[in-house]
């Protein structure tokens, strides 16, 4: 096992959990469970570029698991909404990571599909498709939110951090 990669992964997971916690302290933007600004996605995106797809999936799933256990929402409606959003977003992010999109553009698409996944789960849980009418507003919102969550990854990539994979025994500069 590559210890360095494991440590980075653990650190990113901790950061994702903390960001999710911080996010819970601000009042929600809309009165639906589990729909938030998406601060932990900053970390997921960094992990996707830095460590890889599998690692990003692990961090994302563990983040949802841990936060739901900490807040007592395990297997509650918000849990399924988060899970659905995170999985759909990560599928899109993984598929398009090596495209010509920069991290910021990718982040916007990820945020859009995150919202789509969340609303689909909410629609299934509530047994009505009416919530999907929120989708256009969420999509418009995902542009600024996606740009903001993409900036840290863009910064790290512009510094060349991601071209030195931690398992290649390289020192991290910057």
């Amino acid at each position, binding site marked *: 096992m590559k210890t360095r990669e494991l440590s980075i992964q653990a650190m990113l997971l901790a950061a994702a959990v903390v960001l999710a916690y911080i996010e819970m302290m601000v009042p929600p933007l809309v009165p639906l469970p589990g729909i938030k600004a998406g601060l932990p996605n900053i970390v997921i995106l960094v992990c996707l570029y830095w460590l890889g797809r599998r690692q990003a999936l692990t961090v994302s799933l563990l983040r949802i698991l841990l936060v739901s256990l900490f807040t007592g929402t395990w297997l509650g409606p918000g849990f399924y909404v988060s899970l659905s959003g995170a999985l759909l977003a990560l599928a899109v992010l993984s598929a398009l990571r090596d495209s010509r999109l920069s991290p910021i553009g990718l982040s916007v698409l990820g945020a859009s599909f995150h919202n789509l996944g969340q609303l689909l789960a909410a629609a299934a849980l509530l047994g*009505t498709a009416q919530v999907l009418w929120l989708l256009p507003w969420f999509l418009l919102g995902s542009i600024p939110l996606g740009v903001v969550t993409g900036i840290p990854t863009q910064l790290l990539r512009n510094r060349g951090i991601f071209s030195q994979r931690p398992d290649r025994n390289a020192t991290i500069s910057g």
Partner: protein
Amino acid sequence: MKPTARDRDTRLRGWVNRWDLLAMALVVLTALLLLLWPAMVRTGGSDTVEVSVDGQIAVLPLLEDGHHPFEGPDSPFVVSVQDRTVRMERAGCPDQLCVHQGALRGPSGTIVCLPNRTIIRIPGEPAYDGVSR
């Protein structure tokens, strides 16, 4: 450390390239298309309007524009239907609250005129505008 071709590309072109802008434009376009989807789907209501005057219910078509005069217990009033919306066009009641309520687009909401004991609504399952845990 040697930057990859893609890293150099980003440095040269700055932060956002044309593909990013294209992706964002697609997202905005999708959102606008969904917003411009006819308001009728959004309401999910029926094609009729129910006007209940002092307990008696009259049903008006929502698909035909028109002005429908009624004789209320307080005063006469006119309900008008236009472009799948319904509103109280004119009422003889003193406060005119029903007129100021504006138009109904769907099953969420009602127009009420207390002096005339009148309730106007579009039957159907209301669209959710919020869900609490």
